[in-house]
Structures are given as structure tokens and as C-alpha cells.
């Protein structure tokens, strides 16, 4: 075993001389029987050394040292009639042997040397076999031109099995050699006819194809991944290589990708990790999903409350009260979202966690008791009842709502004890299998709903107030009640305005950043449970862009996310505007 060191000597900027130092590291007798070694594969990992040599058609001799420096030796046999064509050692001493029957045998060394998988790569001879960057997955080419990527994926049982995770675009002639980039997961495949194709492993992309120009015997990607060397019949050709974002394609951004170590293809966003051979996973789907989920819950909370509120203020409320209430809600629109967000994250999250049942009960109970005020009002002593003119119901409603809130808090623990065995979160976990995050979508829904209520309220109140009084007067004169007038005359007339209010509220919720940033755990998971956290496009940008190097892949993907957000809100706002104008035309006649 020899080590060759090239020592370039520089004189200022110019290369003066390259001295070559050859150092003997170890001499290993691979085969005690002294058969000639046809092929050898060698790697070093830390202090450990691994050497495997092909000594006969079906036998590979394997020599390695463990972490204590002790030498080991084994013979790996492939059953006949397989004949080994390629031997390669990967990380932790895993050995691959490709055969002329199209199988790839895999022996693992940890915890003990064992044949773990036999992978049917093709029906034809394996013509090239290489471990990919990181040494966890490998790519095999076969005589029929097929090219596939494999790695050991976790099974549900906890075991691992070799799976065909990637299939690459086949080449005209069988691939005879591969050259790997030492920087990322790009690799070049060299066909028998001399065609060189640059590909990327995870994204399965074919990056570039160099047409054949005579047979190529060897190729190499330079260590900085800025060039590709090919040896063509004794002529060394150098191609400049510029390959800035090989791992991203529409498919990796929006489709399922089978990443190394995952059980199946999935949508994953994970931009950084602690390990070196980590691969960035940029799927925008979980983020879009999170955005939509958060927005949906916020709208579920905000739309009923704000439209009911607007209807009440514009149609039923006493004018003097209205003049006080409207500015209050408008000022609420100006509340900085960072304040709402921090309250949601630091206060509401903890309160809801403690009183989950009470909070869920609270809103329906409030609406119920508030509504029942109509009956309470009838039984009030006449002296007080007459002072509550129509339009001042809210004066009675407010204390009723506070009472309802108090009742909800008071009966919460009892209900929890009766229905959920005393702990709703535990019950969710055991009965429904739902995990509970402290900063979840319920919190976001309420907080973001709170932020959009004033927006929807103001616009729909304007729409309701804009309905000509001649219409309401006519309806009332014909004997319709106040409510009938509101629902059957005012609501249809104002519907374009209401629609646009909801759309604008939706647009605001989609782009809201600080609230989601603070009120969720920013976990990019995909499920509909209201008790889980989310990560939205906007929060993701805020979290990641300060660390994204300018011009890098992450930076560009985040710009794409911003462009997506822009497009979403732009479309929503434009649609809102257009529909409002069109419906307005329609109702102009009324």
C-alpha cells in the first residue's frame, strides 16, 4: 500500500516544480493463496483501513483494521453462476460486489461482517458501480444502459433494506465508468461510446450531456468541482464545469423526493444540519401547506366574528354607540403584529395548554349565551328593559359574554374530567394519536384571526353601510323585520364587498410573518391536526434568510418562496378587486 504525495512548489504566483513523494504505508497480503488480484478497492476512514481485492470469479478477499488497529481478514463469496465484475468499499467498511448477472451484493461490517442485501440492478451485466458522496448510497450501471441509485432505507419494523431510490435517464451505450464530485452529489457517467453525462443523484437530473468524441478511458471531476477531465485515447481534455445549483429542480421543490435515509419519497424542508455530509432538502410543499393551514384556521376564527360584528354595527347598532365602536376596531387594525405574536407565543400558548377544554368551549358558549340574551332581556324588570333600546343590545351582551367566559373556565376542568379522563392532551395522544405542541395552530388561528378581524370588519362594515338606505327603508316599510331586512336585502347587496373583505383578509393572513414566527414552533410538518405547529413560507424566509449566503441555493430558493408569496397575494387581491367591481356593476341597477 503506497501513498503518493504531490508537493507543488510555488515561486510567487507561478508553479515552479512538482516533486512527487512516494511513501510506503503498509504491505498487505490480500490473498494468502497468492492468486493474482484482478481488482482492488481501498478506503481509509479515520485510523481504520479497508482493502478488498477480487481474486477469482466469485471470491473477494477482504482485509481491514478496526479502530484499535487490529487486523482482520475475510473472504466474501458470491454464489455461482455470478461472476463479480466490480468491488467497491464504502463507509464503515461496507463492501459492494456487482456481478455479471446484474446483482449487487452488499456486506455490512457493523456490527459484524454479514451479507445484508442482494439487489437486482438489472438482468444484464453490471458495467459500473460506485459509492456516492457520503458513502451511504451507490449507483450501478448495467449493460442494457440502465442506471439506478440505491441505499438502505429504514423499514417500519426497524430494520433496513436496500431500495432502488433513484432511476436515472439511461444512456445510449452502457456506462463503463463514473466520476464523482467531491463537493455535492453530482456525478458524471461515461458511456462506452465516449458520451459523458453529468447527473445529480438526489434530484435524478441530467445536467449536461457531452456528445461522444471517441472512447473515453477515464474521467475525473476536479476537487473544487470546477472542471472535468477526460482521457480520450491518450489525450487529456479538460472541460470547465459550472454547476451552481444541481440539486434543485421543479421536482425537488414541489415533488416528493426520496432522500437518503428516508423510508419513502417525501416532501421535506430541512436546509441545514450539524453533519458534514448533510444534504439540503428544499421542498416548498410543507411550507405552502403550512401557510394554507394557518390561514384556514385563522379565517375560520375571524370570518364569522368579523362579519357578524360588521353586520351588527352597520345595521342594528345605535348610531352614537357606533361612533365609539368603529374607531376602536380600527385602532385594533393598527396593532403591530409583533405584539399580537408575542402575546400569542408567550401568554396564549401557555394559557391554552393549561385550559384547553375551556378555551375550546369558550367561543361557542359565548355566542350561545350572548344570543340567549334576547330571552333574558324579556324577563328583565320593565324599568331596565325599556332603557335598552334596540341597538344597545351590546350593553347587555358584554357582561353576558364575560359571564360565559367565566363559566367556560369554571366548567372546563369538570368537562375535562368527565370526557377526557382529566387530561385532554393525554387523551388526544392516547385516543386519537395526536401530539400536542404548545405553540400550535389553535394559537395561530386565534392570534392571526385577531389580526385580520379588524381588516375584514372594516371593509365589510363599509360594504354594509354602503347599501342605499332606500333599499332598507323599502324592506322595513313592507313589514320585514330588522333581521329579515339585513339578511335578505342588505347582505346580498353588500356581498361583493364582503367577498372582497374576506379575500383581503385571506391575503393578509397568507403573508403574515411575525405572528406565525412567534406563535408556532416553526416545524415544517404536514398534517391537518390543529394541535401541531406549522412553518409558513413567510416565517421560513424570516428564519432562514439571515443565514443564507448571497447567491447560494438556499438564498435563491427563499427568493422563490417570496416570489410565490407575492404571486399568491397578488392573485388574491386582484381577484378580490375584479370580482368586487363586477358584482358592483351587477348591483348598480338595484
Amino acid at each position: 500500500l503506497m501513498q503518493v504525495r504531490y508537493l507543488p512548489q510555488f515561486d510567487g504566483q507561478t508553479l515552479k516544480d512538482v516533486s512527487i513523494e512516494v511513501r510506503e504505508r503498509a504491505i498487505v497480503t490480500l490473498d494468502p493463496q497468492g492468486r493474482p488480484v484482478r481488482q482492488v478497492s481501498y478506503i481509509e476512514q479515520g485510523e481504520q483501513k479497508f482493502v478488498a481485492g477480487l481474486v477469482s470469479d466469485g471470491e473477494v478477499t477482504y482485509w481491514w483494521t478496526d479502530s484499535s488497529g487490529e487486523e482482520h481478514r475475510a473472504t466474501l463469496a458470491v454464489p455461482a453462476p455470478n461472476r463479480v465484475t466490480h468491488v467497491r468499499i464504502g463507509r464503515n467498511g461496507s463492501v459492494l460486489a456487482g456481478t455479471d448477472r446484474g446483482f449487487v451484493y452488499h456486506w455490512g461490517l457493523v456490527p459484524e461482517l454479514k451479507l445484508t442485501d442482494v439487489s437486482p440492478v438489472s438482468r444484464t451485466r453490471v458495467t459500473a458501480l460506485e459509492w456516492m458522496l457520503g458513502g451511504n448510497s451507490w449507483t450501478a450501471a448495467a449493460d442494457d444502459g440502465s442506471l439506478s441509485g440505491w441505499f438502505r432505507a429504514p423499514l417500519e419494523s426497524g430494520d433496513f433494506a436496500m431500495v432502488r431510490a433513484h432511476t436515472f435517464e439511461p444512456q445510449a451505450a452502457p456506462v463503463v465508468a463514473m466520476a464523482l464530485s467531491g463537493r455535492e452529489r453530482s456525478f458524471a457517467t461515461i458511456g462506452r461510446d465516449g458520451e459523458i453525462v453529468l447527473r445529480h443523484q438526489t434530484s435524478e437530473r441530467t445536467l449536461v450531456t457531452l456528445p461522444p468524441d471517441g472512447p473515453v478511458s477515464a474521467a475525473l471531476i476536479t476537487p473544487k468541482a470546477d472542471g472535468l477531465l477526460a482521457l480520450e485515447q491518450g489525450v487529456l481534455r479538460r472541460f470547465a464545469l459550472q454547476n451552481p445549483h444541481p440539486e434543485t429542480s421543479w421536482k425537488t421543490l414541489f415533488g416528493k423526493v426520496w432522500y437518503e435515509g428516508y423510508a419513502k419519497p417525501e416532501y421535506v424542508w430541512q436546509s441545514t444540519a450539524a453533519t458534514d455530509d448533510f444534504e439540503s432538502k428544499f421542498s416548498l410543499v410543507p411550507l405552502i401547506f403550512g401557510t394554507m393551514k394557518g390561514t384556514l384556521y385563522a379565517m375560520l376564527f375571524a370570518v364569522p366574528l368579523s362579519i357578524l360584528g360588521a353586520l351588527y354595527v352597520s345595521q342594528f347598532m345605535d348610531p352614537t354607540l357606533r361612533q365609539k365602536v368603529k374607531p376602536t376596531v380600527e385602532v385594533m387594525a393598527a396593532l403591530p403584529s409583533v405584539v399580537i405574536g408575542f402575546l400569542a407565543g408567550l401568554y396564549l400558548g401557555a394559557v391554552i395548554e393549561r385550559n384547553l377544554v375551556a378555551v375550546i368551549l369558550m367561543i361557542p358558549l359565548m355566542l350561545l349565551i350572548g344570543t340567549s340574551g334576547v330571552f333574558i332581556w324579556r324577563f328583565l324588570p320593565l324599568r331596565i328593559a325599556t332603557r335598552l333600546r334596540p341597538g344597545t343590545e351590546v350593553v347587555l351582551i358584554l357582561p353576558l359574554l364575560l359571564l360565559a367566559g367565566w363559566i367556560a373556565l369554571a366548567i372546563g376542568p369538570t368537562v375535562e374530567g368527565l370526557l377526557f379522563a382529566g387530561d385532554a392532551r393525554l387523551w388526544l395522544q392516547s385516543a386519537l394519536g395526536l401530539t400536542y405542541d404548545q405553540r400550535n395552530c389553535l394559537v395561530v388561528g386565534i392570534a392571526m384571526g385577531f389580526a385580520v378581524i379588524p381588516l375584514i370588519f372594516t371593509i365589510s362594515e363599509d360594504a354594509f353601510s354602503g347599501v342605499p338606505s332606500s333599499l332598507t327603508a323599502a324592506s322595513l316599510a313592507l313589514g320585514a323585520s330588522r333581521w329579515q331586512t339585513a339578511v335578505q336585502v342588505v347582505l346580498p347587496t353588500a356581498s361583493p364587498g364582503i367577498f372582497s373583505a374576506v379575500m383581503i383578509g385571506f391575503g393578509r393572513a397568507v403573508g403574515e410573518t411575525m405572528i406565525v414566527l412567534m406563535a408556532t414552533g416553526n416545524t415544517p410538518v404536514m398534517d391537518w391536526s390543529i394541535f401541531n405547529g406549522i412553518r409558513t413560507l413567510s416565517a421560513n424566509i424570516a428564519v432562514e434568510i439571515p443565514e443564507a449566503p448571497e447567491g447560494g441555493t438556499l438564498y435563491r430558493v427563499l427568493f422563490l418562496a417570496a416570489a410565490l408569496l407575492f404571486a399568491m397575494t397578488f392573485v388574491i387581491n386582484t381577484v378580490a378587486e375584479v370580482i368586487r367591481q363586477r358584482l358592483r356593476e351587477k348591483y348598480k341597477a338595484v
Partner: protein
Amino acid sequence: MTAQPLRRGDPAIWLAGSGLGVSLIMITGMIVLILTNGLGFFWPGRLVQLTLKDGSVLLGEVSGREPIPQPGTPEHLTHFRTQLKLGNRDLTGVDFRWIEEDAIAARDYPSDALYVERREYGPFIGRAVKLTEGERELSSGSEAVAAALAPLVVKAARDRDTIRGLERDELGAVNYRIERARLEMRRLELEAESSSNPETAEARGEIERETAELKVQYGLLEQRLATIVEEASRTRVTLRSASGEEKELPVLDLYRVYAANRLTTSQRARVYGSRLWEFLSDDPRESNTEGGIFPAIFGTVMMVLIMSVLTVPFGVIAALYLREYAKQGLVVRLVRIGVNNLAGVPSIVFGVFGLGFFVYFVGGSVDRLFYPESLPTPTFGTGGILWASLTLGLLTVPVVIVAAEEALAAVPRSMREASLAAGATTFQTILRVVLPAAAPGILTGLILAMARGAGEVAPLMITGVVKLAPDMPLDGFFPFIHLERKFMHLGYHIYDVGFQSPNVEAAKPMVYATAVLLLLIVVLLNLTAVIVRNKLRRKYQTSAF
């Protein structure tokens, strides 16, 4: 009798009213919550000494109480626990502790318990032991030391001011000049590389001499500072915690000392006032969880002002064009829809644009052209107050345009016609008649834009806001306004202290207090806008005849 209101839909009206009521209760609840938490924080509470049944003694401020959840047992929520703010983070490692009330043997309020605010590790809660100056003991015993401390703490504040003055102004000035000399040197070197000018060698020698002189000055100042610090740190106080551990501190590090259980209400109010003043006027301490937020207030105000200076002309000119000059057609309608749409674009998108365009593209170019001497350290090619203000300007310009257009439209036609009939040109009419009449409306728009700008955080956090900016964007060194500097911002302060600080529980009151301030600014700006608008409406109602 009840059937009739049901049919008429009266309950539905009450339902609608309840919808409004829920919203109103949420707003009030939120504001009350922030106000009580934020303003209550400065009020000095009493210190309680708890003797537990196991014999241990705890001294601290009660900060919470809740029932203990024990689901499935009859004891569920019937027993309580108390949260105590213990302070003394350097001794125990924790600020807060929950104590089950069943474990408490005795509660009392010792009159000699001191609440000591200091430079590091949060407050110290305990008793004073002795006061020493060098080797000499000045006084001992909790009462005597506490009495002797009061004037010393005042003196410590003065000393700190002197030290900070020296550090910031004199040392800072010398440092600043050294840095400028270094950059000048580097610039000359770069110049020398491209052309060999004999004058540069002379200039370089000059700079070298100057630098050497400055370094001598710097050394002298540093010595002076060291002696002052040493002198001031000679007086030291020894404190003892409830569990008996002692801690010696230089008086210079003390910010406020009071015997919490002996204060009269008016004394409490005085402590409250001084804490509030510290909060508004001082620099932050202990990774922003204590001290004041003055740099954040300053940064916010300055950013909003720069933003206004940039937005108003653009917004008003755009509105003038759209309303007074442009032919009302498809293009103008499209522009209007575009402006409205711009107002609905998420703020983070503006932030991303600001980062990509202003910071990296414009800032990077400015650096290469004008500040090559300090590269690779970016000057304008990194987030700064100018870029943040510009980004916010883009964000708020639609608000100004819309408000200005409305204001222009509200100017009575008769006024315009009168001016034109008197022979004024369109431009003169606009400048002398229309704009003055529309000014209050434009002002309203500006105030609304300022309110929006002050409350916005997301775009700022990627274009130049930082958690701690040692240098303010405005100071006494030429050119006085440093637009390239990073700055602090109230909204970001809330996010940072509440979510990124290592000790969130201890930082919470600070977050609430900052939120109160931000809320106050934003709500006041909005109310001003509403009032201005209402006044305006009345004015035009009377003038419309």
C-alpha cells in the same frame, strides 16, 4: 309571545351582537393584559421569606400562583403552588422557583431584606453584611449598610456616567480617528497599486505619524480610565442570600438598592418612577433583559423619520400626477389597482426585495465604488438603517399615495376653478391652492404610514435591525448621521428578548414593557391621524357651500 321574536330573527341580531362583543372583549382583554403586565413590572413588590417544612429558607418576590393539576386524583386542582422570583442567578443558577404551598411552614416579610439591582446576573435578593473600602470596614450589619449604601449608589451612578463618557466620547473619538486613518492608509495603498504617485508616499508617512500619535493618546486615556475604575471599585459591599451564601460586589456595579418591605407607598412610587425612567433612557444590560431600551426607541424613531422623508415626496408626487395631470384612462386605473395591490403584498416580500436589491445589489455596488478600502468588510453592502428605511418606504408609499389622492380629491372644485379663473397656471394652482388645502389629508396619510412603519418588524429583521447595536446611527463624529449602521428597533426587541434570549422567564416583563411602549406609539399615531381626519372633514363640510 316568544314565538314572534324567534320568527322575526331577533336572536340572530343578538348573535351578531355577540360576534361584535367577542371581538371587543378580545381587544380590551389584550390591551389590559399588556398594560398591567408591562406597567406593573416596575412597581417594587414586597419580599417574602418562606421557611419550608424541610427547613430551607427562601427569600423572593411572589410572581405567580396556580392550582396544581393532578388529573385522575381527587386532589386535582385543589392545591396551589406559588412562584417565587429568587434572583441570585450567580449563586443558584435559577431565577424562579415553584413552591408547593403545602410545603411552606412559615411566611414572613423581613424588614431588612434588600432588593439589589446590579450590572450582571439579574437582581440580588438578600441582606447586607458589611461595607468595605479597600481593607477598611466602613459599616456592618444589614440596617447600617443599607443606610450607608444609599448615597454610595448615587455616587456609583455618577461614576458610571464618567466612565462611560470617557469610554464612549474620548476613547471612542480617538478610536474613530485611528480607524479613519487606517482606512485612509488602505485607500492610498490601493491607489499606489494602480498608479505610482510620489505624493502618496509622503501622505502615507503623514498618516503613520498621526496614527502613532493617536495611539499614544489612546494609551493615556486608557490609563486614566483604568485608574478611575480602580478607584471606584474600591468600595465593596458584601451581601448574604437567604440560604446563607455571601457575595461581594463593588458598589460601582450597583444600580438600585432598596429595602423592599420598609418602603412607604410614596417611596415605592419613587422607585417605580426611577425604574420607568431607566427603562426609557438607559442602555440595555444582561443581553437586553434588563436596563433600558433607549437605543431601540432612538432607532425606531430615526428609521421612521428617514422613511417619512423618503416616502412623502414620492407619494405626494405620484398622487398629484394620478389626480391632477394624468388622463383618467386604462393606464391610470391599472396603476391604481397596482398601488392598491402593493399595499396588500406581505411585508416579508418587501424585506426580501430590500435585501436582494438595496443591500446586496445597490449596497454592494456602492461599496465597490466608494469604499474599496474597507472591503471585504462591507460598509453599505450589509443591512443598515438606510436600507431598512428604504424598504419600509416602499412598503408604506401606497398608504401615502392613497391618502394623498383622497385628500386631493376632497379639495373643492370651486377653489381650483377660482384659482385658474384668476389666471394661475395649473402648476401654480396646485402649489398654492390645492396642496395647502390637501396638506392635512396628506399629513393623515403620513401619520398612518409612520404608524405602520413603526409596527412593522419582518422586513426590518432582514435589512438591518440587530439585537444590540453598540453605535447609534447618530452621534458626535463626522458625518454625524451614519446611514450604513445597523440599529435597534422596538418591535424587533420584543421578538428578540421574548423568543431568542436565554432566560425568557426573566425577560418577560421587559417584553411586556416594550410592547406597551410600542403600542402606545402606534396607537397615538393612529389616533392623531383619526383626529386630524375628523377635523378636516368638519372643515370641508363647513366650507362646502
